[in-house]
């Protein structure tokens, strides 16, 4: 067991855990941030995606000891009221069905749009194909990313 200071969603948190514990389980079991989901445990589904200094990472594969001073952003940290343009687009396009994979999908989409404000279909394929949705919301995810892109370019 060891103590770690983490920057999560703009706040400093302290946890006392096994250094090998993946960030996924630190978030879920110790910080009660359960929006980040366990799906496969082998970085094959994308449900556990969070941002580390703005870069999307699979939190199921990331030991807490490897974080250092990097800043973690989870789905809960995107906005206070579903107002992030990606969240707004997800609601307008009525993307989620069961919703379990959507935190990871949204975090990946946010990271994509931070890098490319007007992604092509090929960009969307490349950024999103690590994310499984068993309900089959993929067509709506694509539309929502395009809609969010428009919202963000109008804003920016």
């Amino acid at each position, binding site marked *: 067991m060891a103590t770690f200071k983490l920057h999560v969603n703009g706040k400093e948190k302290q946890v006392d855990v096994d250094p090998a514990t993946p960030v996924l389980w630190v978030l879920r079991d110790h910080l009660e941030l359960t929006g980040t*989901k366990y799906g496969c445990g082998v970085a094959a589904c994308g449900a556990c995606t969070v941002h580390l200094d703005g870069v999307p990472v699979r939190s199921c594969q990331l030991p807490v000891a490897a974080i250092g001073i990097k800043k973690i952003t989870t789905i*809960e940290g995107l906005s206070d009221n579903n107002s992030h343009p990606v969240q707004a687009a997800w609601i307008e396009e009525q993307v989620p069905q069961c919703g379990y994979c959507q935190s990871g999908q949204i975090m990946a989409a946010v990271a994509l749009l931070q890098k490319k404000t007007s992604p092509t279909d090929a960009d969307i394929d490349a950024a999103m194909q690590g994310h499984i949705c068993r309900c089959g919301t993929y067509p709506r995810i694509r539309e929502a990313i395009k809609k969010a892109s428009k919202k963000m370019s109008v804003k920016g």
Partner: protein
Amino acid sequence: MEPKDISRRKFIRATGLSATALTLGFYFSGESKASTIIKGEDAENYGVSLNSWIHIDTNGKVTIVCHRAEMGQGAYQAIPQMIAEELEVNLNEVNIIFGKGDTVKYGSQVTGGSSTVRGSYKNLLKLSASARDMLITAAAAKWSVSTAECFAEAGHVIHRSSGKKMHYGELVVDASKLEAPKNVQLKKVADYKLIRKPLPRQDTPLKTNGTAVFGIDKKIPGMLYAMVERNPRLRGKVKSYDDSAALKVPGVKKVFKVTMKVFSTDREGVAVVADSTWAAMQGRKALKVVWDDTGFEYVSTEEIYKKMKAELQSKDGLSAKKQGDPDPVLAQQKNKLDVIYETPYQAHACMEPLNCVAHHKGDSIEIWGPIQAPDWVQGDISQKMGIKKENVQVNMTFLGGGFGRKAFLDYTHEACLISKEAGAPVQVIWTREDDMTQGPFRPGVSYRAEGAVNNGEITAVKFRMCGQNIGHWMGSKKDVPNDSVLEGFQPHYFDNIKNISFSDIPFETPVPIMWWRSVYASTNGFAYESFMDELAVAAGKDPLAFRKQYLKNERCQKLLEKVEELSGWKARKPKQGYGVAITECFSSTVAQVVKVSKDATGKIKIDKVWAVIDCGWYVNADTVRAQVEGSIIMALGAATNHEIHFKDGLAVEKNFTTYRMPRINEIPPIEVHIMDNNEDAGGVGEPGLPPFTPALTNAIFDLTGKRIRKLPFDLAKV
């Protein structure tokens, strides 16, 4: 946000409104006076009950109970949308909560068979209209006017001529004292304000900010975490185990053997209980278990399919349906078709792996989890744990997918056993590998299809199915055919095919099996609609025209005409493959056309899918479209991406690395059309799945001349 329970409310009076269980209740707080309440979010109850589904507090806040599971299919939207329509309230102003397992209050809560809307809409509309009329009656009495002078709108009763107005909260106490009217006037379809509209789902905002509580997210005070190392051979036992290393893992509290019931069989494992999920995982890894596989049959996929084929070639099986007699016709026919179709075992692979929180408190149990059938779970736990049914509380959370898997009763029972032994509330989490390898699976089914045509007409068709029967797991008789032999087959084919028969050749393996979205229609549909295509080709007929020739029923004709028109079927160009299929299940019929072509490298590419659904009366157009889109994509995965293989009695595929799921870059454009009519409601969550695969393989035949009869197949290698 989490829907709060309503269990602690006390009812002092209960009368039945109809044969279905309605409680007309009246809430009193401890002081024995009508409650003054009640903010849904922070109160332990939701005001005065007008029936099991509708509760209104004195401020006018309306709480509606969703008594079925929300696993993505939209019950959490559809049920309130129906109730709000007849109750006359604004949907975006109501609380929605999940109902606990309770057949007395809600009737069946088993969320399967695409039954939520079709099974309950008449009753829900009626009881909502009834509650509305009680509120109107209460208002009319207060104003000393006749009810005919009053109407309800947006949570208020209004006196037409004077414009006087009262909100439901001011009326609910009086209303609840009234007898529920037996005859109520329901709205006409044309007058609906909410129903049939593509309204945004009430659960969507919870699912875009991480606040929707799934089973795996549930935390209760003092809760421990458990993982179980189960015998990987599906029904095997534990011979011995060494927990010395596991107990040294920091955070591990207890290790013990656990035996979970899987219908008539037992499945054994060793549970590791710890203070975090990670500690439980590490403890589990440190276990040393010796398994006892005595009596186990070491099944392999190869053997299973070999045996099924041999059965199909040597046996007639149990007759499920026979019209005319195809046998003598087939015996005379020289050029008859005689082919085998094979479909694979599948995992449900819900994105949320199985999990359950159980709190065994001695003479009562409370559980929370992603549960498709809370009423079944209540009965099952009561029986297996020896606790009175009324002391077993089963709470549904949101489900991260269900598809039939979460209607199985193994994981909930196991969690109760573990909580009891641990002496604490425990959350049991299955890893992806546990979830994928332990089953139960969709049974792989093989079919033999024989048929003949003469002068462009079908003269005889004979279908035999051979595969495991889910009913046998649940204790059904083995000398009767599988009751799902005809599932998926559009019944109006019988109007025009003179000699046709279906039979089932019973087939057993030790592989546990369970419903998987659209159940046997998911495999039957492939065999039956592929074979219709083969017959059309043999008859020299256009496959879509051939279906119209045999499905003369008006609704089928309209459906086929619509998909023909949308897809531009008649204007097909060279180097385009078009395939069509039509199936019926859960009282809805869906026709699909798939268009394929070859890309620059010569690989098959799906250009587009058109789907037309006739589900009769429906609630939410956008949910219907979403369900058909999702069903098509699930079918695409099962047809072209993945299969569970067995080797030495073990499931080979363990995670998404080998059980390859369709990804965003593999999804073709999908266009869904809903037929508008005034027919009775059909299912929505499943019927979109079965026609996709045969429409796809029929399109591939159209393009390439290659007939695909074994699933899954690799699109890149056709």
